[in-house]
């Protein structure tokens, strides 16, 4: 905080309201808003041009200089009310404790085994890992549902090395190339100049390929949770392969967990993602979840040209008509739909006989099992071919 004060001191005129503004920003930071000295400085500059005695000026100038997203507005409003109007709407302590407790309970239900050896584990852990590595072949076809926690952690380490590469499409951006697509006049003219105006060689350019975005919609209810967690790991590694990945979870309702995956360490990322979801283990309303996705995100353009991977067993408790309708709209808003269902191929037939799968069946471009490591490898292998 002393940094802020010294930055402000460098301003030619130190206005009397600066201390107050610094305190206000401190409060905002406590509330989790990312406010740096730069924003603070801009706020002060803005207030110098306005009337610091006017609450409305204070409010609006702060809002336009300190915030960068519209979901930051509610916390900003809260802090503003508290700081300038003395109106405290924080939760009473007891309720806070209750909430915290329920959060802890949530965490314990959805604990994600770590993929990295703990520091304390030391040699023993390593020895175990060495042994485990030799067992990969055996695990390849062992269903995730029957794996122990340690085995799952080891599997995740293996998956960490697998790369999920979405297919590519031609973007509108051009780059020079050898294929005779379009002439590259810029390069040709430059080369001509170097040759004293004698046209020597014609250069070409073509459209640069770009990876398609990937949207994962994961069922986290009951028995599906184990499979979905593995796909979550996939999402994390695909994200690092420099493509746009969006991740949603659903049980009874849809939650977007993409922001939670912006962490450097996979365990942190997965932990945060797990905390963002409230309804692990519960009923499933696939149709409703997909409909929400289409309405709130798909139509906005999130899934345009994307590969949508849905991971679910198709046991839908909602209305099949809603699911059919949502699937139809989804296919219109994305490039390809991949459905991962661990029960695929179990009963001999390619399509598991749940009502949800029957309804969604006609809209699916690729149906895979993803039940075990081999299944995930198949997914990773076939994805680039979905042009």
């Amino acid at each position, binding site marked *: 905080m002393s940094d802020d004060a010294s930055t402000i001191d460098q301003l030619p005129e130190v206005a009397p309201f600066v201390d107050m503004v610094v305190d206000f920003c401190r409060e905002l930071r406590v509330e989790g808003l990312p406010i740096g000295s730069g924003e603070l400085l801009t706020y002060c500059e803005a207030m110098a041009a306005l009337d610091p005695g006017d609450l409305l000026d204070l409010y609006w100038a702060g*809002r*336009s200089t300190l915030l960068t997203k519209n979901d930051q507005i509610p916390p900003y409003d809260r802090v503003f009310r508290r700081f300038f109007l003395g109106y405290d709407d924080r939760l009473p302590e007891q309720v806070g404790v209750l909430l915290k407790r329920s959060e802890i309970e949530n965490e314990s239900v959805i604990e994600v085994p770590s993929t990295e050896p703990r520091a304390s584990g030391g040699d023993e852990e390593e020895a175990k890992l060495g042994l485990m590595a030799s067992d990969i072949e055996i695990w390849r076809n062992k269903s995730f549902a029957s794996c122990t926690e340690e085995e799952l952690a080891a599997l995740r380490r293996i998956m960490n090395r697998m790369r999920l590469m979405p297919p590519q499409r031609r973007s509108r951006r051009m780059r020079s190339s050898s294929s005779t697509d379009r002439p590259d006049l810029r390069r*040709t003219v430059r080369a001509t100049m170097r040759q004293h105006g004698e046209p020597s060689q014609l250069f070409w350019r073509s459209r640069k390929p770009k990876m398609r975005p990937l949207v994962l919609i994961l069922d986290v209810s009951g028995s599906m949770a184990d499979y979905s967690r593995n796909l979550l790991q996939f999402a994390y590694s695909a994200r690092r392969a420099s493509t746009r990945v969006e991740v949603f979870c659903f049980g009874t309702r849809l939650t977007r967990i993409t922001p939670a995956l912006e962490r450097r360490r996979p365990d942190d990322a997965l932990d945060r993602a797990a905390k963002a979801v409230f309804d692990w283990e519960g009923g499933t309303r696939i149709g409703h979840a997909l409909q929400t996705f289409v309405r709130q995100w798909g139509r906005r*353009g999130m899934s345009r040209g994307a590969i949508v991977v849905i991971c679910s067993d198709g046991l839908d408790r909602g209305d099949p008509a809603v699911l059919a309708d949502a699937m139809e709209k989804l296919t219109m808003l994305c490039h390809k739909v991949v459905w991962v269902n661990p029960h695929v191929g179990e009963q001999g037939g390619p399509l598991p006989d749940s009502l949800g799968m029957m309804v969604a069946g006609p809209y699916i471009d690729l149906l895979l099992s993803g039940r075990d490591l081999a299944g995930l490898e198949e997914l990773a292998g076939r994805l680039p071919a979905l042009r």
Partner: protein
Amino acid sequence: MAELTELLRGGAYLADRGLATAAYVAMTLGRPLLLEGEVGVGKTELAKTLAQVFDKQLIRLQCYEGIDTNQALYEWDYARQMLQIRALSESQLADADHVDQLFGPKFLLERPLLRAVRAGDRAVLLIDEIDRADDEFEAFLLELLSDFQITIPEIGTISAEAPPLVVLTSNRTRELHDALKRRCLYHWMPYPSPEREVEIVLARAAGATETIARKVVAAVNRLRELDLAKPPGVAETLDWVATLDVLGETDLDSETVKDTLGAVVKERDDLETVLDHLEELVVDV
């Protein structure tokens, strides 16, 4: 600031306190203004009105996927350069002057950003739908917005004496980079309140009576409550009023709503939903 609000009102644009403050601060500090909000709430219109009331030139850069510096900044007219080279070499005129001319203003195609830098504070630069451009372009824009300086290797560096007023709009089809947002002042534009919207209709649509304005606004607000894929914006409200005006309607009953619905609801699914709720749209005011 009250002055600014009045000026905008003179341009038939009704800005609320928040927007007026954001625009005022942006102009005072010389910072770009980033407007986000629902479709059709007047983000683009603000830039147009600002240009109009301050008597500045509006320079618009419409972003799209794959837009690059050649389309946004400048481009040499290669085809003409090529012809010129041929002509020069045929008439044996390849001396220094003629070669210099090859990279003179005659062959430079000016694109919106270069034009804005040259115009400086005589212009309002509108960068529309920045969310459609890709990351690479955003990074480039970041650089330009910080110092308003363009270097063309053959000519030299061109910089704006005073930066133009920059307005960026985004429909939030994707999240913009934080770095870009931090350069800008941010304002979120919600739908206006019904009273405000009536005022907007009366200010913008010359032929509208207050009754019809109120009825249309009430109906549009009801439409926004329905679960539609594309809720109508203020632009649609104005379109609807204009449609009614063309048809010479003086009142809004369920029959007229049905006939003119195409002005506000533009999706088949939405139409079906709305037709189910037709009666609720017509209210007495």
